[in-house]
């Protein structure tokens, strides 16, 4: 049973969406669930007071693991069959730098991707119900939640801000 309603204001202009977000934030009457945009919008991020992503830590950890993995693999391979080639040392650190470097990049990228997917909670192939397809094209969506009896007021609010309105029923709202 729906205990709360989510309403999306859909705006054709970035500044209208920013204006709606700022007003919702300042009134604190209806919590913002999320905002959608077809491009990374600095103005919206600022209005939403978005914090810096922590995905970079995954990248760093991946890079460190890769650095040691590359070196250790090369050292392990060499010492597993200690054959001197061209008078070079068995554990020749200079050529192993290349292996270490490539593994650093590779694992950092893996960490980067894992960080992104984990932090963004992707993939998410279900639960696209509270999403309007126009938001991937040319519109900016601001999703806010309200009590069912407050639907009319929130709708009016978005309309006054210049937006189109889409209402969704939700029993388990996900707030920002």
């Amino acid at each position, binding site marked *: 049973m729906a205990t709360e309603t989510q309403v999306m204001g859909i705006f*054709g*202009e*970035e500044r209208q969406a920013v204006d709606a977000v700022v007003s919702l934030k300042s009134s604190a009457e209806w919590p913002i669930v*999320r*905002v*959608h*945009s*077809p*491009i*990374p*919008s600095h103005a*919206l*991020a600022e209005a*939403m007071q*978005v*914090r810096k*992503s922590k*995905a*970079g830590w995954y*990248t760093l950890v991946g890079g460190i693991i890769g650095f040691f993995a*590359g070196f250790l*693999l*090369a050292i392990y*391979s*060499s010492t*597993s*069959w200690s*054959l001197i*080639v061209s008078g070079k040392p068995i554990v*020749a650190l200079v*050529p*192993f730098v*290349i*292996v270490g*470097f*490539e*593994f650093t*990049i*590779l694992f*950092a*990228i893996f960490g*980067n*991707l894992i*960080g*992104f*997917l984990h*932090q*963004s*909670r*992707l*993939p*998410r*192939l*279900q639960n*696209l119900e509270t*999403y309007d397809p126009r*938001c*991937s*094209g*040319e519109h900016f969506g601001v999703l806010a939640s309200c009590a069912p009896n407050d639907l009319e007021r929130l709708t009016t609010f978005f309309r006054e801000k210049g937006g189109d309105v889409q209402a969704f029923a939700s029993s388990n709202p996900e707030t920002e």
Partner: protein
Amino acid sequence: MSQLTFAEIDRTVLDTLRPPGRSYWMVVGVLFLGVLMGAACWAYQIARGIGVGGQNIPVAWGIYLVNFVFWVGIAHSGTLISAILHLMRAGWRNPIARAAETMTVFAVCVAGLFPFIHLGRVWLVYYMLPIPTQRTLWPNFQSPLLFDVVAISTYLTVSALFWYTGMLPDLARVRDDAEGVRKRVFTVLSLGWTGAHEQWRHYTRIYLFFAALATPLVISVHSVVSWDFALGVVPGWHTTIFAPYFVAGAIHSGLAMVLTLMIPLRKIFHYERFISMHVLESVAKTIIFTGLIVGFAYGTELFIAWYSRNPVEMEAFRWRLQGHYAYGFWIMVVCNVLVPILFFFKRIRTSIPWLFGISILVNIGMWYERFVIIISAVGHDFLPNAWGFYSPSWVELGVMVGSFCLFFFFFMLFCKHLPSVSMTEMKETLVQGESHGH
């Protein structure tokens, strides 16, 4: 550009994904036949042995490795455009970044086939992998050939992930425009991307890291490829200039291939308002720059050979200029250094036929550069009694033609099935230019 709107960008790109006509499938069919022909040549080589190729002592590295280096080089400008120019905030890269990244991924795939083909007994390729085997031997990581395995496989993985991640917002746009099975396919491909602020927050951050990590990688990869040669003591190869020389050459050839691909794409898909003359001109100007670096490298090689007073080195380079393969040397000098100088003239770098023609010549010149480096060095090294010639057999030429068909086959499939221009980055360009036309 100032008249463009978000809706127009979407409409133009999404229109390219409408079901193609018969002529498209005919071209795809012809390319596929070319791929089959190349595969048949390779199968013939596997059945009869590597001796069906023209490579033999002293020239044991033939055009299989020429093509390997050529395709790795082609791959490089994709990363230059998508990563390095992204970090430098060069806005003109946005309309061509997607196609250039795609070119990178396919070119590395094609390049990666050639060591397998060159290997002869391809079923033993797993010897290169650091895994326990019945040989109880592990790969020798001191060998530049193993550096190559690590570098190229890393480059392919990173390029493919960079390409795919960068495409997520556009895949979501295609999903939202599609119906039926197509919608389901793109729902999976887009991983449920909705452009929520939380997604953008992480996306912009990791995209920056992708670019920052891909930049040193791209430089390392062609440096490693150059060390396949430079770490050998062969005259003409054993030089410290090889790494920067190869990286500049790779970007030079890749930019030329970008023009070769973009100019028809622009015409066929009506991308004239996206891929403007300014964009093509910027690529042409970069080609002047890389061409001059490559020219400087050619000159430095010759100067150092003369200045060394080393008779073997001097003879190797005299032969390069005047010997059996001198035609290749002069083709490379003319096509890679002299012809791109024409781009100094605005009239030429803003003319589509000139741009296209010069891009083809640079592609040819860069192929010959690799031919000259690889073939002429080992064909004429230390001892006159060990000198020899090489000419590719029909099997090698068949595989080479097949590789070109494979690259263009992949690219043709990409153009009609995935967005070939990044809608998101085009929209960002509009907003940054404050010419948002809603």
